[in-house]
Protein backbone atom coordinates (compact mmCIF):
# COMPACT_ATOMS: atom_id res chain seq x y z
CA UNK A 1 0.00 0.00 0.00
CA UNK A 2 0.96 3.61 -0.12
CA UNK A 3 3.36 5.25 2.28
CA UNK A 4 1.62 6.11 5.47
CA UNK A 5 3.80 8.90 6.80
CA UNK A 6 1.15 11.52 6.00
CA UNK A 7 -1.55 9.22 7.32
CA UNK A 8 -1.53 10.60 10.84
CA UNK A 9 -2.64 14.12 9.90
CA UNK A 10 -5.34 12.95 7.56
CA UNK A 11 -6.62 10.40 10.07
CA UNK A 12 -6.93 13.09 12.71
CA UNK A 13 -8.84 15.24 10.23
CA UNK A 14 -11.12 12.32 9.38
CA UNK A 15 -11.92 11.68 13.01
CA UNK A 16 -12.61 15.35 13.64
CA UNK A 17 -14.86 15.38 10.61
CA UNK A 18 -16.81 12.39 11.88
CA UNK A 19 -17.16 14.15 15.21
CA UNK A 20 -18.43 17.25 13.43
CA UNK A 21 -21.01 15.09 11.64
CA UNK A 22 -22.28 13.24 14.67
CA UNK A 23 -21.85 15.39 17.76
CA UNK A 24 -24.48 18.03 16.94
CA UNK A 25 -27.00 15.31 16.37
CA UNK A 26 -26.03 13.44 19.51
CA UNK A 27 -27.33 16.29 21.65
CA UNK A 28 -30.81 15.11 20.85
CA UNK A 29 -30.58 11.78 22.66
CA UNK A 30 -28.41 13.39 25.31
CA UNK A 31 -31.02 15.92 26.38
CA UNK A 32 -33.89 13.52 25.89
CA UNK A 33 -32.77 11.79 29.05
CA UNK A 34 -32.20 15.06 30.89
CA UNK A 35 -34.51 15.95 33.80
CA UNK A 36 -34.81 19.63 33.02
CA UNK A 37 -37.41 20.97 30.60
CA UNK A 38 -34.79 23.42 29.34
CA UNK A 39 -32.31 22.28 26.78
CA UNK A 40 -29.23 23.68 28.44
CA UNK A 41 -26.15 22.73 30.40
CA UNK A 42 -25.57 21.77 33.15
CA UNK A 43 -27.35 18.42 32.98
CA UNK A 44 -29.77 17.84 35.78
CA UNK A 45 -30.14 14.11 36.08
CA UNK A 46 -31.33 11.09 34.18
CA UNK A 47 -34.97 10.43 33.41
CA UNK A 48 -37.12 8.52 30.96
CA UNK A 49 -40.20 10.62 31.65
CA UNK A 50 -40.04 12.37 28.30
CA UNK A 51 -40.19 9.04 26.48
CA UNK A 52 -43.23 8.08 28.50
CA UNK A 53 -44.82 11.43 27.74
CA UNK A 54 -44.10 10.99 24.05
CA UNK A 55 -45.63 7.54 23.93
CA UNK A 56 -48.76 8.81 25.62
CA UNK A 57 -49.32 11.55 23.08
CA UNK A 58 -52.20 10.45 20.87
CA UNK A 59 -51.63 13.08 18.23
CA UNK A 60 -48.05 11.95 17.93
CA UNK A 61 -49.02 8.31 17.63
CA UNK A 62 -51.54 9.11 14.94
CA UNK A 63 -48.95 11.08 13.00
CA UNK A 64 -46.53 8.19 13.41
CA UNK A 65 -49.12 5.82 11.99
CA UNK A 66 -49.69 8.13 9.03
CA UNK A 67 -45.97 8.36 8.36
CA UNK A 68 -45.63 4.59 8.43
CA UNK A 69 -48.46 4.17 5.95
CA UNK A 70 -47.17 6.88 3.65
CA UNK A 71 -43.62 5.55 3.93
CA UNK A 72 -44.53 1.96 3.20
CA UNK A 73 -46.72 2.86 0.23
CA UNK A 74 -44.11 5.23 -1.16
CA UNK A 75 -41.43 2.58 -0.76
CA UNK A 76 -43.45 -0.01 -2.66
CA UNK A 77 -44.51 2.35 -5.45
CA UNK A 78 -41.14 3.97 -6.02
CA UNK A 79 -39.26 0.66 -5.86
CA UNK A 80 -41.66 -0.88 -8.38
CA UNK A 81 -41.34 2.06 -10.77
CA UNK A 82 -37.61 2.17 -10.18
CA UNK A 83 -37.25 -1.54 -10.90
CA UNK A 84 -39.09 -1.30 -14.20
CA UNK A 85 -37.04 1.70 -15.25
CA UNK A 86 -33.72 0.20 -14.11
CA UNK A 87 -34.48 -3.04 -15.93
CA UNK A 88 -35.43 -1.18 -19.09
CA UNK A 89 -32.32 0.98 -19.05
CA UNK A 90 -29.77 -1.73 -18.22
CA UNK A 91 -31.15 -4.61 -20.21
CA UNK A 92 -32.30 -2.97 -23.43
CA UNK A 93 -30.81 -0.49 -25.84
CA UNK A 94 -33.51 2.13 -25.46
CA UNK A 95 -33.42 5.05 -27.89
CA UNK A 96 -32.82 8.25 -25.91
CA UNK A 97 -32.09 6.20 -22.80
CA UNK A 98 -29.56 8.62 -21.38
CA UNK A 99 -31.96 11.53 -21.72
CA UNK A 100 -34.76 9.57 -20.08
CA UNK A 101 -32.48 8.63 -17.20
CA UNK A 102 -31.56 12.28 -16.77
CA UNK A 103 -35.22 13.21 -16.70
CA UNK A 104 -35.94 10.73 -13.93
CA UNK A 105 -33.10 12.19 -11.84
CA UNK A 106 -34.48 15.70 -12.17
CA UNK A 107 -36.27 15.74 -8.80
CA UNK A 108 -32.88 15.56 -7.11
CA UNK A 109 -31.91 18.89 -8.62
CA UNK A 110 -35.09 20.81 -8.03
CA UNK A 111 -35.66 22.37 -4.60
CA UNK A 112 -38.31 20.60 -2.56
CA UNK A 113 -40.29 23.78 -2.25
CA UNK A 114 -40.68 24.05 -6.00
CA UNK A 115 -41.78 20.41 -6.23
CA UNK A 116 -44.20 20.93 -3.38
CA UNK A 117 -45.88 24.02 -4.71
CA UNK A 118 -46.13 22.79 -8.28
CA UNK A 119 -47.80 19.57 -7.17
CA UNK A 120 -50.12 21.71 -5.06
CA UNK A 121 -51.03 23.72 -8.14
CA UNK A 122 -51.72 20.56 -10.13
CA UNK A 123 -53.90 18.96 -7.48
CA UNK A 124 -55.76 22.21 -7.06
CA UNK A 125 -56.29 22.49 -10.80
CA UNK A 126 -57.79 19.01 -11.08
CA UNK A 127 -59.79 19.59 -7.89
CA UNK A 128 -58.25 16.68 -5.99
CA UNK A 129 -58.45 17.26 -2.23
CA UNK A 130 -55.24 17.18 -0.26
CA UNK A 131 -54.70 14.08 1.82
CA UNK A 132 -52.16 11.41 2.61
CA UNK A 133 -52.60 10.25 -0.99
CA UNK A 134 -51.25 13.52 -2.31
CA UNK A 135 -48.32 13.18 0.07
CA UNK A 136 -47.68 9.70 -1.31
CA UNK A 137 -47.60 11.15 -4.83
CA UNK A 138 -45.09 13.79 -3.87
CA UNK A 139 -42.91 11.38 -1.97
CA UNK A 140 -42.95 8.83 -4.76
CA UNK A 141 -41.73 11.53 -7.10
CA UNK A 142 -38.66 12.27 -5.02
CA UNK A 143 -37.98 8.62 -4.16
CA UNK A 144 -38.00 7.21 -7.68
CA UNK A 145 -34.51 8.62 -8.48
CA UNK A 146 -33.12 6.93 -5.36
CA UNK A 147 -34.75 3.65 -6.27
CA UNK A 148 -33.46 3.82 -9.83
CA UNK A 149 -29.91 4.52 -8.68
CA UNK A 150 -29.83 1.65 -6.20
CA UNK A 151 -31.47 -0.81 -8.58
CA UNK A 152 -29.42 0.16 -11.62
CA UNK A 153 -26.18 -0.38 -9.75
CA UNK A 154 -27.51 -3.79 -8.74
CA UNK A 155 -28.73 -4.77 -12.19
CA UNK A 156 -25.67 -3.52 -14.02
CA UNK A 157 -23.50 -6.29 -12.65
CA UNK A 158 -26.01 -8.77 -13.95
CA UNK A 159 -24.85 -11.27 -16.56
CA UNK A 160 -27.23 -10.78 -19.47
CA UNK A 161 -26.78 -14.40 -20.49
CA UNK A 162 -28.51 -15.56 -17.32
CA UNK A 163 -31.86 -14.37 -18.59
CA UNK A 164 -31.12 -15.64 -22.07
CA UNK A 165 -30.19 -19.03 -20.62
CA UNK A 166 -33.52 -19.14 -18.86
CA UNK A 167 -35.35 -18.36 -22.09
CA UNK A 168 -33.30 -20.92 -23.93
CA UNK A 169 -34.31 -23.52 -21.35
CA UNK A 170 -37.97 -22.99 -22.09
CA UNK A 171 -39.17 -20.21 -19.79
CA UNK A 172 -41.17 -17.21 -20.97
CA UNK A 173 -40.17 -13.63 -20.25
CA UNK A 174 -42.49 -13.49 -17.27
CA UNK A 175 -41.42 -16.76 -15.66
CA UNK A 176 -37.81 -15.79 -16.30
CA UNK A 177 -38.41 -12.64 -14.28
CA UNK A 178 -39.75 -14.61 -11.32
CA UNK A 179 -37.23 -17.45 -11.43
CA UNK A 180 -34.05 -15.56 -12.27
CA UNK A 181 -34.22 -11.75 -12.35
CA UNK A 182 -36.25 -11.18 -9.20
CA UNK A 183 -34.28 -13.48 -6.85
CA UNK A 184 -31.00 -12.04 -8.03
CA UNK A 185 -32.21 -8.46 -7.78
CA UNK A 186 -33.76 -9.06 -4.37
CA UNK A 187 -30.96 -7.55 -2.26
CA UNK A 188 -31.20 -4.40 -4.37
CA UNK A 189 -34.97 -4.42 -4.07
CA UNK A 190 -34.86 -4.70 -0.30
CA UNK A 191 -32.24 -1.99 -0.10
CA UNK A 192 -34.35 0.27 -2.29
CA UNK A 193 -37.46 -0.38 -0.19
CA UNK A 194 -35.66 0.50 3.00
CA UNK A 195 -33.97 3.62 1.67
CA UNK A 196 -37.08 5.02 -0.01
CA UNK A 197 -39.04 4.34 3.18
CA UNK A 198 -36.57 6.35 5.19
CA UNK A 199 -36.59 9.23 2.71
CA UNK A 200 -40.37 9.39 2.83
CA UNK A 201 -40.56 8.93 6.58
CA UNK A 202 -38.23 11.83 7.25
CA UNK A 203 -39.48 14.19 4.56
CA UNK A 204 -41.06 17.40 5.80
CA UNK A 205 -41.55 20.17 3.26
CA UNK A 206 -43.46 18.38 0.51
CA UNK A 207 -45.65 16.69 3.07
CA UNK A 208 -46.30 20.09 4.66
CA UNK A 209 -47.65 21.45 1.39
CA UNK A 210 -49.57 18.40 0.28
CA UNK A 211 -51.09 16.98 3.45
CA UNK A 212 -54.68 17.80 4.20
CA UNK A 213 -55.89 17.35 7.73
CA UNK A 214 -53.75 14.32 8.48
CA UNK A 215 -50.28 15.07 9.72
CA UNK A 216 -47.20 13.01 9.08
CA UNK A 217 -44.64 12.75 11.83
CA UNK A 218 -42.31 15.52 10.59
CA UNK A 219 -45.33 17.84 10.26
CA UNK A 220 -46.28 16.98 13.83
CA UNK A 221 -42.76 17.69 15.05
CA UNK A 222 -42.77 21.03 13.22
CA UNK A 223 -45.99 22.02 14.94
CA UNK A 224 -44.53 21.21 18.36
CA UNK A 225 -41.40 23.28 17.90
CA UNK A 226 -43.27 26.39 18.97
CA UNK A 227 -43.95 25.11 22.44
CA UNK A 228 -40.88 25.10 24.72
CA UNK A 229 -42.40 22.83 27.33
CA UNK A 230 -43.03 20.21 24.70
CA UNK A 231 -39.45 20.27 23.52
CA UNK A 232 -38.06 17.40 25.63
CA UNK A 233 -40.67 14.94 24.43
CA UNK A 234 -39.95 16.06 20.88
CA UNK A 235 -36.31 15.32 21.61
CA UNK A 236 -37.28 11.88 22.82
CA UNK A 237 -39.15 11.32 19.59
CA UNK A 238 -36.27 12.68 17.55
CA UNK A 239 -33.76 10.45 19.29
CA UNK A 240 -35.93 7.40 18.70
CA UNK A 241 -36.28 8.26 15.00
CA UNK A 242 -32.55 8.80 14.64
CA UNK A 243 -31.72 5.43 16.10
CA UNK A 244 -34.35 3.65 14.01
CA UNK A 245 -33.18 5.36 10.81
CA UNK A 246 -29.56 4.51 11.53
CA UNK A 247 -30.39 0.86 12.12
CA UNK A 248 -32.42 0.64 8.92
CA UNK A 249 -29.67 2.30 6.87
CA UNK A 250 -27.01 -0.06 8.16
CA UNK A 251 -29.28 -3.00 7.49
CA UNK A 252 -30.07 -1.78 3.96
CA UNK A 253 -26.40 -1.27 3.11
CA UNK A 254 -25.45 -4.62 4.59
CA UNK A 255 -28.02 -6.44 2.49
CA UNK A 256 -26.99 -4.62 -0.65
CA UNK A 257 -23.30 -5.38 -0.22
CA UNK A 258 -23.92 -8.96 0.85
CA UNK A 259 -25.76 -9.58 -2.35
CA UNK A 260 -22.86 -8.19 -4.36
CA UNK A 261 -19.98 -9.97 -2.59
CA UNK A 262 -21.24 -13.50 -2.45
CA UNK A 263 -22.14 -13.78 -6.07
CA UNK A 264 -19.84 -11.29 -7.67
CA UNK A 265 -17.32 -13.79 -8.95
CA UNK A 266 -20.02 -15.72 -10.70
CA UNK A 267 -21.92 -12.74 -11.95
CA UNK A 268 -19.00 -11.55 -13.99
CA UNK A 269 -18.94 -14.84 -15.89
CA UNK A 270 -16.61 -17.71 -16.43
Amino acid at each position, binding site marked *: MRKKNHGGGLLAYALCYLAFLYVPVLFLPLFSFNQSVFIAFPLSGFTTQWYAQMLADDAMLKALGNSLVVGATTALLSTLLGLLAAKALTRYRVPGGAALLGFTSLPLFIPDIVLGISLLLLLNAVAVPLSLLSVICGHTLICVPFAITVLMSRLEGFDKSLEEASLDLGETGWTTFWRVTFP*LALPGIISSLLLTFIVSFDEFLIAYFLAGNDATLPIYIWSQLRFPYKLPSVLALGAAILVASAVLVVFAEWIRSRGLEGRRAVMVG*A
Partner: protein
Amino acid sequence: MSEDPFLRIEHVTKRFADVVAVDDADLTIRRGEFFSLLGPSGCGKTTLLRIIAGFEFPDSGEIYCDGVRLTDEPANVRPSNMVFQSYAIFPHLNVFDNIAYGLRREHLTPSDLKVRVTEALAMIKLEGLGARWADELSGGQRQRVALARALVRRPKMLLLDEPLGALDRRLRETMQLELRALQKSLGITFVFVTHDQEEALSMSDRIAVMSGGRILQVATPRTLYEAPSCREVADFIGEMNFFSGWISARDGASAQIDLGALGSFNVVAPQSAGTRVLVALRPEKIMLSDAGVKGSVSAAAFLGERSHYFVKVESLAEPIAVAVQNSALTPGHAVGDIVHLAWSADALVILPAD
Protein backbone atom coordinates in the same frame (compact mmCIF):
# COMPACT_ATOMS: atom_id res chain seq x y z
CA MET B 1 -24.34 -39.17 -39.72
CA SER B 2 -26.93 -39.07 -42.43
CA GLU B 3 -26.96 -36.76 -45.37
CA ASP B 4 -30.41 -35.46 -44.64
CA PRO B 5 -30.76 -31.74 -44.13
CA PHE B 6 -31.73 -30.81 -40.60
CA LEU B 7 -31.19 -27.09 -40.18
CA ARG B 8 -31.62 -24.82 -43.16
CA ILE B 9 -30.50 -21.20 -43.05
CA GLU B 10 -31.70 -19.40 -46.14
CA HIS B 11 -30.31 -16.01 -47.15
CA VAL B 12 -30.26 -14.69 -43.61
CA THR B 13 -29.14 -11.09 -43.19
CA LYS B 14 -28.89 -9.17 -39.92
CA ARG B 15 -27.91 -5.55 -39.41
CA PHE B 16 -27.09 -3.65 -36.23
CA ALA B 17 -27.27 0.08 -36.91
CA ASP B 18 -25.04 0.46 -40.02
CA VAL B 19 -23.04 -2.68 -39.46
CA VAL B 20 -24.01 -5.79 -41.41
CA ALA B 21 -23.34 -8.55 -38.93
CA VAL B 22 -24.57 -11.42 -41.08
CA ASP B 23 -24.62 -10.94 -44.84
CA ASP B 24 -26.82 -13.25 -46.88
CA ALA B 25 -25.83 -16.42 -45.04
CA ASP B 26 -26.95 -19.59 -46.73
CA LEU B 27 -26.24 -22.89 -45.05
CA THR B 28 -27.55 -26.43 -44.60
CA ILE B 29 -26.54 -28.44 -41.56
CA ARG B 30 -27.10 -32.19 -41.57
CA ARG B 31 -28.73 -34.28 -38.87
CA GLY B 32 -26.28 -35.59 -36.30
CA GLU B 33 -23.45 -33.47 -37.64
CA PHE B 34 -20.78 -31.70 -35.59
CA PHE B 35 -20.79 -28.41 -37.44
CA SER B 36 -18.52 -25.48 -36.65
CA LEU B 37 -18.78 -21.79 -37.44
CA LEU B 38 -15.21 -20.58 -37.66
CA GLY B 39 -13.81 -17.11 -38.13
CA PRO B 40 -12.03 -14.18 -36.50
CA SER B 41 -13.75 -11.93 -33.94
CA GLY B 42 -16.49 -9.85 -35.46
CA CYS B 43 -17.07 -12.14 -38.42
CA GLY B 44 -20.70 -12.74 -37.50
CA LYS B 45 -20.48 -16.33 -36.27
CA THR B 46 -21.90 -15.59 -32.84
CA THR B 47 -24.67 -13.46 -34.33
CA LEU B 48 -25.61 -16.30 -36.65
CA LEU B 49 -25.66 -18.70 -33.72
CA ARG B 50 -27.89 -16.36 -31.75
CA ILE B 51 -30.23 -16.12 -34.74
CA ILE B 52 -30.44 -19.92 -34.78
CA ALA B 53 -31.09 -19.89 -31.04
CA GLY B 54 -33.79 -17.25 -31.27
CA PHE B 55 -32.15 -14.37 -29.39
CA GLU B 56 -31.85 -12.29 -32.52
CA PHE B 57 -34.25 -12.15 -35.42
CA PRO B 58 -33.00 -11.83 -39.00
CA ASP B 59 -33.86 -8.73 -41.03
CA SER B 60 -34.42 -11.02 -43.99
CA GLY B 61 -34.17 -14.71 -44.71
CA GLU B 62 -35.59 -17.83 -43.11
CA ILE B 63 -34.56 -20.59 -40.74
CA TYR B 64 -36.06 -24.05 -40.97
CA CYS B 65 -35.46 -26.94 -38.64
CA ASP B 66 -36.77 -30.33 -39.67
CA GLY B 67 -39.13 -28.60 -42.05
CA VAL B 68 -40.57 -26.26 -39.44
CA ARG B 69 -40.15 -22.54 -39.97
CA LEU B 70 -38.35 -21.13 -36.94
CA THR B 71 -37.56 -17.62 -38.14
CA ASP B 72 -39.90 -15.66 -35.89
CA GLU B 73 -40.23 -18.08 -33.03
CA PRO B 74 -38.88 -16.87 -29.69
CA ALA B 75 -36.01 -18.73 -28.09
CA ASN B 76 -38.04 -20.59 -25.53
CA VAL B 77 -40.02 -22.65 -28.05
CA ARG B 78 -37.10 -23.63 -30.29
CA PRO B 79 -35.87 -27.22 -30.34
CA SER B 80 -32.30 -26.19 -29.61
CA ASN B 81 -30.46 -25.48 -26.40
CA MET B 82 -27.40 -23.34 -25.94
CA VAL B 83 -24.18 -23.42 -23.96
CA PHE B 84 -23.21 -19.78 -23.37
CA GLN B 85 -19.71 -18.39 -23.52
CA SER B 86 -19.94 -17.21 -19.92
CA TYR B 87 -21.72 -20.49 -18.97
CA ALA B 88 -24.53 -18.46 -17.36
CA ILE B 89 -24.83 -20.75 -14.36
CA PHE B 90 -27.57 -19.39 -12.09
CA PRO B 91 -25.77 -18.18 -8.96
CA HIS B 92 -28.81 -18.49 -6.74
CA LEU B 93 -29.33 -22.20 -7.49
CA ASN B 94 -27.07 -25.14 -6.76
CA VAL B 95 -25.80 -27.52 -9.44
CA PHE B 96 -28.76 -29.89 -9.16
CA ASP B 97 -31.32 -27.08 -9.47
CA ASN B 98 -29.39 -25.53 -12.33
CA ILE B 99 -29.54 -28.72 -14.32
CA ALA B 100 -33.17 -29.29 -13.35
CA TYR B 101 -34.12 -25.72 -14.30
CA GLY B 102 -35.32 -26.45 -17.81
CA LEU B 103 -37.21 -29.58 -16.80
CA ARG B 104 -39.82 -27.70 -14.81
CA ARG B 105 -42.16 -27.50 -17.79
CA GLU B 106 -42.10 -31.26 -18.26
CA HIS B 107 -43.83 -31.69 -14.91
CA LEU B 108 -41.87 -34.76 -13.90
CA THR B 109 -42.38 -36.48 -10.60
CA PRO B 110 -39.61 -35.73 -8.11
CA SER B 111 -38.14 -39.18 -8.48
CA ASP B 112 -38.12 -39.00 -12.28
CA LEU B 113 -36.52 -35.60 -12.06
CA LYS B 114 -33.83 -36.95 -9.79
CA VAL B 115 -33.13 -39.76 -12.23
CA ARG B 116 -32.78 -37.43 -15.18
CA VAL B 117 -30.52 -34.99 -13.36
CA THR B 118 -28.35 -37.75 -11.92
CA GLU B 119 -28.04 -39.19 -15.42
CA ALA B 120 -26.92 -35.81 -16.69
CA LEU B 121 -24.40 -35.40 -13.88
CA ALA B 122 -22.96 -38.80 -14.71
CA MET B 123 -22.73 -37.90 -18.38
CA ILE B 124 -20.49 -34.94 -17.59
CA LYS B 125 -18.63 -36.82 -14.88
CA LEU B 126 -19.70 -34.61 -12.00
CA GLU B 127 -21.59 -37.23 -9.99
CA GLY B 128 -22.20 -36.30 -6.40
CA LEU B 129 -21.63 -32.60 -6.92
CA GLY B 130 -25.33 -31.73 -7.10
CA ALA B 131 -25.31 -29.79 -3.88
CA ARG B 132 -22.44 -27.49 -4.84
CA TRP B 133 -22.95 -23.85 -5.67
CA ALA B 134 -21.63 -22.13 -8.77
CA ASP B 135 -18.94 -20.15 -6.97
CA GLU B 136 -17.60 -23.39 -5.51
CA LEU B 137 -16.86 -24.84 -8.94
CA SER B 138 -13.84 -24.45 -11.20
CA GLY B 139 -14.21 -23.02 -14.69
CA GLY B 140 -14.09 -26.46 -16.28
CA GLN B 141 -16.71 -27.78 -13.91
CA ARG B 142 -19.00 -24.84 -14.57
CA GLN B 143 -18.68 -25.51 -18.25
CA ARG B 144 -19.80 -29.09 -17.77
CA VAL B 145 -22.77 -27.99 -15.69
CA ALA B 146 -23.79 -25.65 -18.51
CA LEU B 147 -23.50 -28.59 -20.89
CA ALA B 148 -25.53 -30.90 -18.69
CA ARG B 149 -28.20 -28.26 -18.17
CA ALA B 150 -28.65 -27.97 -21.91
CA LEU B 151 -28.46 -31.67 -22.70
CA VAL B 152 -30.78 -32.87 -19.96
CA ARG B 153 -33.66 -31.48 -22.01
CA ARG B 154 -32.72 -33.85 -24.83
CA PRO B 155 -32.73 -31.17 -27.52
CA LYS B 156 -32.48 -31.99 -31.18
CA MET B 157 -29.63 -29.54 -31.55
CA LEU B 158 -27.01 -28.15 -29.21
CA LEU B 159 -25.56 -24.68 -29.84
CA LEU B 160 -22.20 -23.88 -28.30
CA ASP B 161 -20.83 -20.32 -28.21
CA GLU B 162 -17.04 -20.53 -27.83
CA PRO B 163 -17.45 -22.72 -24.76
CA LEU B 164 -13.78 -23.63 -24.40
CA GLY B 165 -12.29 -20.17 -24.73
CA ALA B 166 -11.81 -19.53 -21.03
CA LEU B 167 -10.13 -22.85 -20.25
CA ASP B 168 -6.40 -23.43 -20.13
CA ARG B 169 -4.78 -25.35 -22.93
CA ARG B 170 -4.60 -28.80 -21.33
CA LEU B 171 -8.19 -28.67 -20.16
CA ARG B 172 -9.30 -27.34 -23.49
CA GLU B 173 -7.75 -30.25 -25.36
CA THR B 174 -9.34 -32.76 -23.00
CA MET B 175 -12.73 -31.10 -23.35
CA GLN B 176 -12.42 -31.10 -27.14
CA LEU B 177 -12.09 -34.87 -27.15
CA GLU B 178 -14.87 -35.29 -24.61
CA LEU B 179 -17.26 -33.05 -26.50
CA ARG B 180 -16.61 -34.90 -29.70
CA ALA B 181 -17.15 -38.27 -28.04
CA LEU B 182 -20.29 -36.99 -26.34
CA GLN B 183 -21.71 -35.76 -29.61
CA LYS B 184 -21.05 -39.05 -31.29
CA SER B 185 -22.66 -41.08 -28.53
CA LEU B 186 -25.72 -38.85 -28.29
CA GLY B 187 -26.10 -38.54 -32.05
CA ILE B 188 -27.53 -35.04 -31.92
CA THR B 189 -26.50 -32.10 -34.07
CA PHE B 190 -23.93 -29.73 -32.56
CA VAL B 191 -23.38 -26.22 -33.89
CA PHE B 192 -20.10 -24.97 -32.48
CA VAL B 193 -18.75 -21.43 -32.71
CA THR B 194 -15.02 -20.83 -32.35
CA HIS B 195 -12.22 -18.58 -33.54
CA ASP B 196 -9.61 -21.30 -32.97
CA GLN B 197 -9.02 -23.07 -36.26
CA GLU B 198 -7.19 -26.00 -34.73
CA GLU B 199 -10.13 -26.62 -32.47
CA ALA B 200 -12.56 -26.51 -35.37
CA LEU B 201 -10.42 -28.75 -37.54
CA SER B 202 -10.02 -31.39 -34.86
CA MET B 203 -13.64 -31.62 -33.76
CA SER B 204 -15.87 -30.95 -36.73
CA ASP B 205 -17.52 -32.99 -39.44
CA ARG B 206 -17.86 -29.81 -41.48
CA ILE B 207 -16.87 -26.21 -40.98
CA ALA B 208 -18.26 -22.92 -42.28
CA VAL B 209 -15.52 -20.29 -42.46
CA MET B 210 -16.91 -16.79 -41.98
CA SER B 211 -15.50 -13.34 -42.40
CA GLY B 212 -17.13 -9.91 -42.41
CA GLY B 213 -20.56 -11.46 -42.01
CA ARG B 214 -20.23 -13.66 -45.09
CA ILE B 215 -19.80 -17.41 -45.29
CA LEU B 216 -16.66 -17.97 -47.34
CA GLN B 217 -16.57 -21.74 -47.62
CA VAL B 218 -18.37 -24.73 -46.15
CA ALA B 219 -16.43 -28.01 -46.30
CA THR B 220 -14.89 -30.84 -44.30
CA PRO B 221 -11.73 -29.97 -42.36
CA ARG B 222 -9.59 -31.83 -44.86
CA THR B 223 -11.08 -30.05 -47.84
CA LEU B 224 -10.73 -26.68 -46.18
CA TYR B 225 -7.12 -27.43 -45.46
CA GLU B 226 -6.17 -28.97 -48.79
CA ALA B 227 -8.48 -27.05 -51.12
CA PRO B 228 -9.44 -23.66 -49.72
CA SER B 229 -11.64 -21.72 -52.11
CA CYS B 230 -10.16 -18.26 -51.62
CA ARG B 231 -7.24 -16.44 -50.10
CA GLU B 232 -9.01 -15.56 -46.86
CA VAL B 233 -9.86 -19.15 -46.08
CA ALA B 234 -6.40 -20.35 -47.09
CA ASP B 235 -4.83 -17.70 -44.90
CA PHE B 236 -7.04 -18.34 -41.90
CA ILE B 237 -6.59 -22.10 -41.77
CA GLY B 238 -3.07 -23.12 -40.98
CA GLU B 239 -0.06 -21.41 -42.44
CA MET B 240 0.21 -20.72 -46.13
CA ASN B 241 2.66 -19.37 -48.68
CA PHE B 242 1.20 -17.27 -51.50
CA PHE B 243 2.73 -16.78 -54.92
CA SER B 244 1.37 -15.11 -57.96
CA GLY B 245 1.50 -16.89 -61.28
CA TRP B 246 -0.29 -17.15 -64.56
CA ILE B 247 -1.68 -19.82 -66.81
CA SER B 248 0.72 -20.16 -69.68
CA ALA B 249 -1.00 -22.97 -71.61
CA ARG B 250 -3.95 -25.30 -71.47
CA ASP B 251 -4.41 -28.91 -72.55
CA GLY B 252 -7.90 -30.13 -71.86
CA ALA B 253 -8.43 -30.31 -68.12
CA SER B 254 -4.87 -29.63 -67.17
CA ALA B 255 -3.04 -26.34 -67.38
CA GLN B 256 0.52 -25.14 -67.31
CA ILE B 257 1.14 -22.65 -64.56
CA ASP B 258 4.10 -20.31 -64.62
CA LEU B 259 5.46 -19.22 -61.26
CA GLY B 260 8.29 -17.11 -62.57
CA ALA B 261 11.50 -17.82 -60.70
CA LEU B 262 9.89 -20.80 -58.99
CA GLY B 263 9.34 -22.70 -62.19
CA SER B 264 6.48 -24.11 -64.22
CA PHE B 265 4.07 -26.79 -63.12
CA ASN B 266 1.34 -28.94 -64.57
CA VAL B 267 -1.86 -28.59 -62.54
CA VAL B 268 -5.60 -29.17 -62.82
CA ALA B 269 -7.26 -25.76 -62.94
CA PRO B 270 -10.29 -24.27 -64.64
CA GLN B 271 -8.90 -20.83 -65.53
CA SER B 272 -8.21 -20.04 -69.18
CA ALA B 273 -4.78 -19.35 -70.58
CA GLY B 274 -3.38 -15.92 -69.87
CA THR B 275 -5.24 -15.50 -66.56
CA ARG B 276 -3.34 -14.34 -63.51
CA VAL B 277 -3.89 -16.60 -60.51
CA LEU B 278 -2.94 -16.80 -56.86
CA VAL B 279 -1.11 -19.96 -55.93
CA ALA B 280 -1.04 -21.22 -52.36
CA LEU B 281 1.38 -23.77 -50.94
CA ARG B 282 1.49 -25.26 -47.43
CA PRO B 283 4.88 -25.01 -45.67
CA GLU B 284 4.94 -28.71 -44.84
CA LYS B 285 4.54 -29.67 -48.51
CA ILE B 286 7.88 -28.11 -49.32
CA MET B 287 10.86 -30.43 -49.12
CA LEU B 288 14.47 -29.48 -48.59
CA SER B 289 16.39 -31.47 -51.17
CA ASP B 290 19.46 -31.28 -53.40
CA ALA B 291 17.76 -29.79 -56.40
CA GLY B 292 15.08 -27.20 -56.82
CA VAL B 293 14.60 -23.52 -56.12
CA LYS B 294 17.70 -22.14 -54.48
CA GLY B 295 17.47 -19.95 -51.43
CA SER B 296 19.16 -19.10 -48.16
CA VAL B 297 17.79 -19.61 -44.68
CA SER B 298 16.88 -16.25 -43.15
CA ALA B 299 15.29 -17.55 -39.93
CA ALA B 300 15.15 -20.92 -38.23
CA ALA B 301 13.12 -22.20 -35.28
CA PHE B 302 13.37 -25.60 -33.66
CA LEU B 303 9.97 -26.72 -32.33
CA GLY B 304 10.63 -30.20 -31.09
CA GLU B 305 8.90 -32.43 -33.60
CA ARG B 306 9.19 -29.89 -36.40
CA SER B 307 11.47 -27.15 -37.53
CA HIS B 308 10.26 -23.98 -39.18
CA TYR B 309 12.45 -22.11 -41.63
CA PHE B 310 12.09 -18.90 -43.56
CA VAL B 311 13.96 -19.17 -46.83
CA LYS B 312 14.84 -16.11 -48.82
CA VAL B 313 14.68 -16.70 -52.52
CA GLU B 314 16.08 -14.19 -54.93
CA SER B 315 13.43 -12.35 -56.94
CA LEU B 316 10.75 -12.93 -54.32
CA ALA B 317 9.93 -10.15 -51.87
CA GLU B 318 8.68 -12.38 -49.05
CA PRO B 319 10.65 -15.33 -47.67
CA ILE B 320 9.05 -18.74 -48.12
CA ALA B 321 7.89 -20.57 -44.99
CA VAL B 322 8.99 -24.19 -44.82
CA ALA B 323 8.00 -26.73 -42.17
CA VAL B 324 10.11 -29.87 -41.90
CA GLN B 325 9.53 -32.93 -39.75
CA ASN B 326 12.57 -33.46 -37.55
CA SER B 327 14.21 -36.88 -37.54
CA ALA B 328 17.63 -38.35 -36.85
CA LEU B 329 18.28 -38.48 -40.57
CA THR B 330 17.48 -34.90 -41.59
CA PRO B 331 20.11 -32.41 -40.57
CA GLY B 332 19.04 -29.12 -39.06
CA HIS B 333 19.77 -25.92 -40.93
CA ALA B 334 21.13 -22.70 -39.56
CA VAL B 335 20.65 -19.14 -40.66
CA GLY B 336 22.65 -18.46 -43.81
CA ASP B 337 22.63 -22.04 -45.10
CA ILE B 338 21.96 -22.49 -48.77
CA VAL B 339 19.06 -24.88 -49.37
CA HIS B 340 17.02 -26.13 -52.30
CA LEU B 341 13.24 -26.23 -52.16
CA ALA B 342 11.11 -28.72 -54.06
CA TRP B 343 7.44 -29.68 -54.07
CA SER B 344 5.07 -31.72 -56.13
CA ALA B 345 2.68 -30.02 -58.52
CA ASP B 346 -0.47 -31.36 -56.90
CA ALA B 347 0.46 -29.64 -53.62
CA LEU B 348 -0.26 -26.32 -55.31
CA VAL B 349 -3.68 -24.79 -54.61
CA ILE B 350 -4.92 -22.54 -57.40
CA LEU B 351 -7.03 -19.61 -56.20
CA PRO B 352 -8.54 -16.65 -57.98
CA ALA B 353 -6.21 -13.67 -57.99
CA ASP B 354 -7.07 -10.93 -55.49
